[in-house]
């Protein structure tokens, strides 16, 4: 039985930290759920790296346009005020520091902010990177949403990533099922614990030194 926040609650918690008017890029998986939990009174503009600002929710099947997809190759809609553009413009928005927040899933994140979310490096695996390396180097704030451990209980918050890096020292905040964790110059620090979760539980499931919340 899992404890702490579920997937929706993790996404909702992350949404709380995104300021009104932000340009936001959401990764595939739990990060996509952030769009369902925009806090009252705020508006986010979603960027999808295949070439659109103002991405809206999935359309009803009869309203689908087969030429309107997101970066996860799912059909989406366009909100009023949306814009289309080619890939070089889209990645100029990313590399040029114009996107405010990117929320990503991960395989590992390290106490120094390194992230590894594109390859396990296993021989025989087909390497596929997409836009992940561009996003982590270019977007102003890199947030990660992830389960605190793998399905087999291995820590995903680690001292040093053992998988190939997507980018070094880029992650600022992590939302897990157990806690909100900041990456500080001194390493991991818990900002907030999920209801019913103790700091000792977080510490036990973390593969690196981690500091308790400031009291």
């Amino acid at each position, binding site marked *: 039985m899992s404890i702490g926040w579920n997937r929706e609650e993790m996404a909702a918690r992350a949404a709380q930290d995104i300021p009104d008017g932000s340009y936001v890029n959401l990764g595939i998986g739990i990060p996509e759920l952030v769009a369902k939990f925009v806090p009252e009174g705020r508006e986010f503009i979603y960027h999808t*790296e295949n070439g659109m600002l103002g991405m809206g929710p999935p359309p009803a099947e009869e309203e689908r346009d087969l030429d309107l997809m*997101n970066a996860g190759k799912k059909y989406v809609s366009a909100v009023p005020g949306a814009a289309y553009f*080619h890939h*070089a413009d889209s*990645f100029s928005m990313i590399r040029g520091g114009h996107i405010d927040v990117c929320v990503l899933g991960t395989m590992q994140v390290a106490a120094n902010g390194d992230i590894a979310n594109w390859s396990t490096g296993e021989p025989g695996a087909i390497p596929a990177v997409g*836009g992940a390396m*561009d996003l982590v180097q*270019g977007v102003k704030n890199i947030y990660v949403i992830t389960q605190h451990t793998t399905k087999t209980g291995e820590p995903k918050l680690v001292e040093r990533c053992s998988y190939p890096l997507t980018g070094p020292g880029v992650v600022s905040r992590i939302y897990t099922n157990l806690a909100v964790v900041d990456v500080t110059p001194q390493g991991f620090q818990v900002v907030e614990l999920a209801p019913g979760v103790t700091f000792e539980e977080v510490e036990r499931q973390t593969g690196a030194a981690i500091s308790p919340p400031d009291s």
Partner: protein
Amino acid sequence: MIDKRYPSVTAAVASIQDGATVMIGGFGASGSPVELIHALIDHGASDLTVVNNNTGNGEVGLAALIRNGQVRKMICSFPRSSQSKVFPELYREGRIELELVPQGTLAERIRAAGAGIPAFYTPTTVGTILAEGKELRTFDGRTYVMEPWLRADFALVKCELSDPVGNLTYNKTARNFSPLMCMAATTTIVQARKVVPAGGIDPEHVITPGIFVDRVVEVTDPVHEDVLIAAGRSYP
């Protein structure tokens, strides 16, 4: 009056030679020039280097070109997906080469070629295995990796509207890499859903100016890769 129209997709791809580098527009199924790719399969040119974000889906379009043994090397950012089986099999058997390029770097390398810029510096891949062996340089205290331009002999592109001089518009996110590829190829071949007379596209609305386009074929009712895959089709 300049007229870049070709009578058929067959005629438009006939000069693609063995060993050519071919850029193919599209991001997944959206914007994929399926009719031009199928014409290239019929044409049979082999030993190709293909530039695309992905490696095709199912057994139509780009995946069918690869399955037909015409592609020696893929240059792409994301060579697998839930519906891509052809490339992964050949890759594991060592029968096709892969140059993996991050998506933004891929776009910028293509754009740079079209703009006559032989290389540029980007922070993307710094500190990762994809930067190994590449030139690093520091600007204002931050480290960047040098990436070269990426040129091609041909580009195959799908657009929405064209006029006879090759001014183009696109449909929604089907635009993706296509305007960049039009700039970067020696010969750009376009399939347009509709060819309108000169003046039929407001000059303010032109996305790809005709200077970047060489051949235009009207394909009035283009098939969509997702529709072919859902129907279980393969090509040929």
